[in-house]
Structure formats: structure tokens, C-alpha cells
């Protein structure tokens, strides 16, 4: 019984296609985006722009041939 359900679920997942696996209808998909968006909106510390400015000054990039 549980095995059949599991099989049917697998088939359903496959039929939905990969994108729907975490699509808008999935609570997991939504939470995942919420979790990540919160991380994305975190303010970027100064150290990174300073680091890049230093790199730019110390090791200017060569134009590729």
C-alpha cells in the first residue's frame, strides 16, 4: 500500500517535470525562496568593496588577447 503510493508519487513528480518539484505550489519551494531572499537582502559589508578596490589597484587585469 505505502509502496504503491510511493510509486505513484514518484511518477507524479516525474510527470510534473523538474521545475514543479519546487514550484510555487510547493510549501518547500516557497520557504526555500523566503529563506534565500532574506539572505540576499542582507546588507553587504564594506570589506568586500574594499577588497575589490585593493585588488583592482594591486593587480590590474590584462585585456585578454
Amino acid at each position, binding site marked *: 500500500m505505502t509502496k504503491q*503510493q510511493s510509486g505513484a508519487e514518484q511518477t507524479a513528480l516525474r510527470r510534473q517535470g523538474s521545475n514543479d518539484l519546487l514550484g510555487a505550489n510547493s510549501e518547500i519551494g516557497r520557504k526555500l525562496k523566503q529563506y534565500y531572499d532574506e539572505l540576499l537582502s542582507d546588507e553587504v559589508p564594506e570589506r568586500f568593496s574594499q577588497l575589490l578596490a585593493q585588488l583592482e589597484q594591486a593587480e590590474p587585469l590584462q585585456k585578454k588577447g
Partner: protein
Amino acid sequence: MAVSSAFKNDLLAAIPNLRAFAVSLTQNADKADDLVQETLVKAWDKHESFQMGTNLKAWLFTILRNEFYSQMRKRGREVQDTDGIMTERLAVHPSQHGLLDLEDFRGALEQLPQDQREAIILIGASGFSYEEAAEICGCAVGTIKSRVSRARNRLQEILKISGEEEYGPDAISAQVTGSNAA
């Protein structure tokens, strides 16, 4: 000089994404920022190897991920940490009003094995295609698919929610879902 500032701006623009991915991998904000810093330095040094017109974000994610695993290897025993802890932990209970709390979700995500967590983040959050994620992780597309699927099932199991129906209706169905996903 123009090459430098253009590349610098591209890197700057990618930082929020790199930090988000790094936090997802390390589960630690300080380690994540160190990892991003390493990635930026490496990216600058390896600039030549970046093919213009290809996906910079994917290229940077690959560097970050490689750096992460090479640090993990150096630290040795920390590597499979998550796997061990996972089995010890009790399942997260949905908060009383039934809504899945973001804190609970974060806890559940932490319990995933490393390879499953990175796969579900790349696909479900960072916006990569399965092909790109496979490239980033250096594995087959099918491997990514099965990791994402297992990660999703496991999260549902931990959080006791069923697939398309919101917030698993009752304990019995949650158990059924749980045994299916195992």
C-alpha cells in the same frame, strides 16, 4: 583599467548571491563571509579562465563551492558533521498556529546532508537550471535531480508537511508521508 573596473563591478553585483550560497553551505555567517572573500580573490586571480559571455554567476559559484570543499577537507572531521547530527535530532514541530516558521525551515535545512542541501539551494533558490547546477557541482544532471528530490522529501518529512497540500493536515497523514519518503 577598463577591464578591471568592469570585472570588479560584475563581482560586486554577484556578492549578495555568493553570500547567500555561502551561508547555505556553511550555516555560519562568519565562515560564509570568509569563503566569499576567498572566492573573490580567487576569481580575480583566475580572471583569465573566465569565458566572456558565459554565466559569471555559475563560474563564481563553482569557485566558491570548490573552495568550501577544499577547506572542509583540510579541516577533516568537520566534513560530514551534518550527517551525524541529523540522525540525533528530533523532528521540528510546526509552530502552534500551523504556519511553517522560517526558523523551523532553517533548522530543517541544516539537517540535510551537504550534497542535498546544496542541490536544493542551487535549484530552488539560486535560480540555476539542473544543467548549470550539475556543472557547478561537477556531477551528472540526474544526480542533481535525485538530490533535489531527496532533499525535498526529507524537508517535508522533517517539517511534517505533505507535498502540494499545505501544512500537513494531521499526524496520521504526516506519518504516512514520512514512511513514504524514507
